[in-house]
């Protein structure tokens, strides 16, 4: 596989990979780092890419794994994420309040707080529009399992959203 073929087959997935990484890592810079890492990995195994049914699914899988590794090492290094500190501190700045009044922003905050697996599945399904079979390929989970996780995620999101709204109405 030469550069042209690689560009044609792998590069179109670029934005999808980026969105996945950003959803998981919640940082644009880290997501772009991940993207480059994944492309480099794909490039080194380019001779074997023909053997895969879907290069995109493979790339998504690799991105997911790289992200999980990064999250793991972040946890081990006890890196203090300034972004999270702000979200977790019960105090809301006026700026934050204004931001949260927008329903989409509220939803964004809720989504970011979901457990990693729920977030991943929900992202793959609702943002990228993957079928269950494709999600199965990427995550290695069974379809039934995926369904359960997805439904749990949707209910969780709904519940949290309604809670916040009720709090705001009071």
């Amino acid at each position, binding site marked *: 596989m030469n*550069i*042209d073929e*690689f*560009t044609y087959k792998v*590069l179109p997935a*670029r*934005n999808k*990979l*980026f*969105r996945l990484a*950003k*959803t998981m890592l919640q940082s*644009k810079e880290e*997501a*772009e780092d991940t*993207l*480059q890492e994944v*492309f*480099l990995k794909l*490039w080194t195994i380019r001779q074997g890419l023909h053997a895969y049914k879907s290069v995109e699914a493979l790339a998504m899988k690799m991105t997911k794994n790289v992200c999980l590794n990064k999250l793991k090492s972040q946890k081990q290094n006890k890196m203090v994420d300034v972004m999270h500190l702000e979200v977790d501190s019960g105090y809301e700045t006026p700026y934050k309040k204004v931001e949260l009044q927008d*329903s*989409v922003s*509220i*939803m*964004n905050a809720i*989504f970011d707080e979901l457990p990693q697996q729920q977030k991943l599945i929900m*992202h793959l*399904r*609702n*943002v*990228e*529009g993957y*079928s269950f079979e494709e999600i199965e390929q990427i995550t290695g989970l069974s379809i039934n399992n995926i*369904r*359960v996780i*997805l*439904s749990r995620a*949707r*209910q969780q*999101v*709904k519940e949290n*959203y*309604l809670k916040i*709204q009720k709090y705001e109405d009071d």
Partner: protein
Amino acid sequence: MKMIDIEALVEKYDAGETTLEEEDQLAKYFSQEKVPAHLEVYAAQFRMFAQKKEESASEQEDIAHFLAKVEATKAVAAPVKQPFQVWVQWGMRIAAGISLVLLGFVAGKWYEQTNLADDAGISTVTTASTNELKLMKQVLMTSQDESSSASDRIQAVNQVQQLEQADKELVQLLINTMNFDPNINVRIAASEALFQFNDDPMVRLALVNSLKIQKDPAIQLTLIDMLIQLKETRAVDTMRKLLQSEEVLDVVKTKAEQGIGTLS
């Protein structure tokens, strides 16, 4: 789309049972401005998903360009070696090793030769450096003025013993030490050292003469032994004198008799 359909779809959606097409329908429905309040939670979700879908990686440098660069650095870092090249490389290494060894030999030979030429009059020093030799001589020379200890001098003499050859100056020093050193042990050591160089006629003569001077039985015995070994007939007269002397111990006399018997 009818309200009932949406309600039913939303329920299915929560259960995770909607198909992709149905989710598309929902997305389309919620993209409109006005939705009933109780469906706002879904509207927010689908708007968020739509927003996320729009996100894209910032335009970095062309990825193809980036990969080409990666390849280029790799090619520089590890050029593919031809088998022939590998052989030549190894050959060069081995040749360098062999030539180093040869150079060592040649240098050694050359050094030896120049040394011989330089010190034609003086014997070659093989086990002690010239510096050490000088030091030894100095120590031996100071035997008279007590500035060196007996053990220092014995050590110096022992070092001389390790030499294979000695120059005249050194032999003379040893002879002086053997005859006049205040310490008996140093004298014995010196005589033993001299015995090594018994090819030298001067040494032989010195041993013969020394027996006349020596008063101590220990060194007398050593000297007689040596002279017997050297088959030095010149010493017979001295031994006879020893026999007649009254100061000489019986042991020495017996030894001298034995010597006379062997030598004459």
